[in-house]
């Protein structure tokens, strides 16, 4: 009876959770669909169906376990990866950032230029008797006053007007001023109305009580998808690469442009552009060296410490407590303080050793510094892992070997290390992958430098692929997100192949069926 009751409770609980999650998803699907976020809507629908099938039927037992994890992984890891892959096919950089319709809207509004004298008027915003928007404009310096609507302009005689201290007219016949809240409610209309002035010029409101004289220099023709400059008669056509370009002068482009699909051009550029290509190879080699050396040194020191502490020793607890400190400190702080320590003039390291090494100005020393700091940051992790693993290796094994006359070195090489490696090799692979993309340490410690900038180098000596890509994607002025995405995809393919090869060889995934 008790068992039956327990089962009833857990089953009910399961249904409640499934119902809750489904309800939330349904709600989200509905509202995302209403807001035209179709991609998200579709993903959520697939998720909902998968949840319903998995938990309300016995379709697949394993899925009951891994579905939630996979949904999260797809939404926030795989999704963004696919987005990046998609972006690598676009001409996506500073100047080509928004969509084409957005770009056209902005070229049109950017094509409205103030007149040469940058004439502005003080205005009162209101309505004409027909409730149409109207402005009462004053030019106090020239003592000119007029009313203007979208269609007509009426000059006023200053003699008949009440003029305030600033020389502005405030009331006019037939004109009713709008209250601030009425104006706020009509913000969009006020912003888009062109009040009449002359045949070439019109007036736009530039907030509250200022208006300025404008002319439209660029006109868009949607049937031919071209812009025409009214003043110079230049015609601008979509160049297929995200810009409207003057048909007579390729270098005359309208801005902003948009991100246009250029398919594989970003990838071919990696091979054809000598500047990018020549930087990629040394960076790639250093990335591999950096990640390997990091894992190797961290693991070696971690293991050494774990073995040293793997027996009764005075002060063992204190040692342990101290040795895991780097792991518990915020790593940003640690990296930055190390950066200060390596300073040539004022750094603690030169101070301590009485040396005068230019740590961050020399490629070799900078690389050494990166490895040292990363060792500091990461060895406690391997110390913890290794000491756990060492304790688990049955003592009988090594004792038996010792009785058979094996030296302690032999015991280590033939028994301890192989057993240990079996346990930690997945973690070594994961650590290699982590360090391959360890952006923080490079960015915060050396910034990728030293870099032979004057010699024309585009990457620094300690730049790893991810920090190099970051420079391309986010450096001041010229951000090439499309190219950076392409490099990311290439990095990903390379590291994925290496890791898969490594996994196959070490048979990490085969050990359990």
């Amino acid at each position, binding site marked *: 009876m008790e068992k039956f009751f327990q089962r009833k409770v857990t089953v*009910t609980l399961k*249904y*409640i959770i499934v*119902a809750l999650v*489904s*309800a*939330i998803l*349904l*709600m989200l699907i509905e*509202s995302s669909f209403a807001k035209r976020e179709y991609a998200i809507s579709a993903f959520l629908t697939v998720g909902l169906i998968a949840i319903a099938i998995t938990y309300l039927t016995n379709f697949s037992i394993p899925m009951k376990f891994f579905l939630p994890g996979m949904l999260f992984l797809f939404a926030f890891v795989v999704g963004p990866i696919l987005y990046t892959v998609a972006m690598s096919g676009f001409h996506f950089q*500073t*100047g080509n*950032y*928004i969509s084409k319709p957005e770009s056209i809207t*902005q070229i049109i*509004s*950017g094509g409205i230029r103030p007149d040469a004298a*940058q004439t*502005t008027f003080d205005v009162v915003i209101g309505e004409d008797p027909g409730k149409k928007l109207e402005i009462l404009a004053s030019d106090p310096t020239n003592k000119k006053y007029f009313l203007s609507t979208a269609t007509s302009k009426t000059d006023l005689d200053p003699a008949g007007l009440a003029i305030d201290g600033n020389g502005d007219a405030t009331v006019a016949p037939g004109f009713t001023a709008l*209250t*601030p*809240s009425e*104006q*706020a409610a009509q*913000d*969009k209309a*006020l*912003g888009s109305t062109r009040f009449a002035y002359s045949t070439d010029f019109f007036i*736009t*409101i*530039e*907030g*509250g*009580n*200022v208006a*300025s004289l*404008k002319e439209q220099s660029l006109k868009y023709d949607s049937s031919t998808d071209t812009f025409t400059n009214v003043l110079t008669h230049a015609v601008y056509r979509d160049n297929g690469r995200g810009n409207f370009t003057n048909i007579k002068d390729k270098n005359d482009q309208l*801005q*902003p*442009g948009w991100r246009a699909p250029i398919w594989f051009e970003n990838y071919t550029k990696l091979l054809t552009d000598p*500047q990018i290509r020549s930087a990629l190879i040394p960076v790639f080699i250093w990335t591999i060296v950096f990640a390997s050396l990091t894992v190797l040194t961290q693991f070696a020191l971690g293991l050494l410490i774990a073995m040293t502490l793997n027996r009764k020793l005075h002060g063992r607890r204190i040692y342990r407590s101290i040795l895991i400190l780097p792991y518990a400190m915020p790593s940003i702080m640690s990296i930055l303080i190390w950066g*200060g320590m390596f*300073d*040539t*003039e*004022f*750094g603690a390291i030169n101070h301590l050793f009485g040396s005068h090494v230019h740590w*961050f*100005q020399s490629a070799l020393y900078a690389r050494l510094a990166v490895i040292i700091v990363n060792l500091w940051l990461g060895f406690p992790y391997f110390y913890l892992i290794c000491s756990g693993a060492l304790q688990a290796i049955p003592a009988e094994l090594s004792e038996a070997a010792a009785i058979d006359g094996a030296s302690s070195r032999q015991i280590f090489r033939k028994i301890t290390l192989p057993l240990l490696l079996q346990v930690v090799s997945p973690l070594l692979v994961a650590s290699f992958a982590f360090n391959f993309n360890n952006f923080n340490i490079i960015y915060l410690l050396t910034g990728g430098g030293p*870099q032979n*900038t*004057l*010699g*024309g180098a585009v990457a620094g000596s300690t730049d790893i692929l991810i920090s190099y890509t970051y420079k391309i994607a*986010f*450096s*001041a*002025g*010229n*951000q090439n997100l499309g190219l950076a995405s392409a490099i990311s995809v290439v990095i990903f393919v390379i590291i994925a192949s290496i890791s898969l090869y490594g996994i196959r060889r070490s048979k990490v995934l085969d050990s359990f069926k």
Partner: protein
Amino acid sequence: MIQRKFGKVAALTVAAGLISGFVSAPVHAASNTIIVWADETRGPHLQQVIAAKGDWVPGYTIKIVPFSSFDALNAAFGNATALTGPDIVVGANDWVSTGAKNGKLAPVTLSSSVRANFTANNLFDLSYKGVLYGVPLDVNNVSMLYNSKLTGKPGTLTQMVKFYLANKSADKLTAGLCVAGGGMSWGAESVLNALGGAPYVMTASGTVDPTADPVPAATVAANIKRLFLGANGKSNGFFPATDTGCKTAFLAGTVPYAIIGNWEWQDYAKAGFDMNNLMPVPGLNHGKFGSAYASVSGAMLTTFAAQHGVDQGAKSLLNNFFGSSAGAVAYQNVELRPPANKKAQKNASVTAAQKGFGKAGAVAGLPQIGAILNGAAGSKSFWDLLPAFWTDVLVNGKDPQTSAAAMDAFFKTNIAAGIPQL
């Protein structure tokens, strides 16, 4: 069986009712709210000023969103779209060209009275291709401060070097002149200028000279050899190639001259340094100085404002608050940076140091032109070139003339590519 299904459906319905309140309840932002993004110092100060007097734009509510840091603000604005983006963003002048090219910033036409509050240089700083995108807010510049306990007011760079070499060991000096604020490019530009070089040369009429040689390699190299290098061709210790530790060393009294930033003058004043000892970096001859950049940060209009339906409100806020003298004084009394607004600069409530930096900028100031400094595609930016130059010459022992010529070539490329964008 039927009961079970009923149970499921019932649970589902109840749950739906409960959840709908949480997830889909819209977070209503009133339709006439102007959203302003700012960094960790300007944001809270703007909040304070707006809270004290909120009716700068009648009919609208102003909401200031202070980010946790300038970097965070930069990252967020770089990613923002109309969905959640701001109507006005308070940022650095070098955001203008990128923001305009990416369609994130919208053109602004200021009333003539507001425009009269600012210098042409400051408005130029917030323009791209001749179009203005915002209102200047505060001026950022660097200036040299000398330690009057160690030395007197120097007349020339040569005198400074002589003083350093003569008193190096007796006073235990760690350096002669170092850069404490602004970094080895922006902050150290006046040193390059004092030596006879510049990233670009201005004509008398205030435009970039397309033909002048920015870094006359032979001259600059000769000056560096004479002043900054020892007989062995390595640095004589007068001018360190990095800015790390300069502030501490100067405050500790082991460096006689330092280039400091106007955003942290209070740290120096508190340590007992007299702000009257601020001056531009002396040049090679008496009365000549190295020009330093004076850049403005500004409040910029975004294209999102029109999409949010508060374009007019945002423009009014720029004119009525950010651009007006009353707004600038109210704000700078809290923010304590040198105001860009000319009337606010003269206002009695603005402090001496705020004015002092302004004066140093006026004696030897250089307009900061992002379109040239950020570098052309395939070239290098000034921000990377100058630090690399110092390192090559002062640390790596490379030939100053070769290095200067290499830098000069990059500068020329950047000038040629930048001028059409002005």
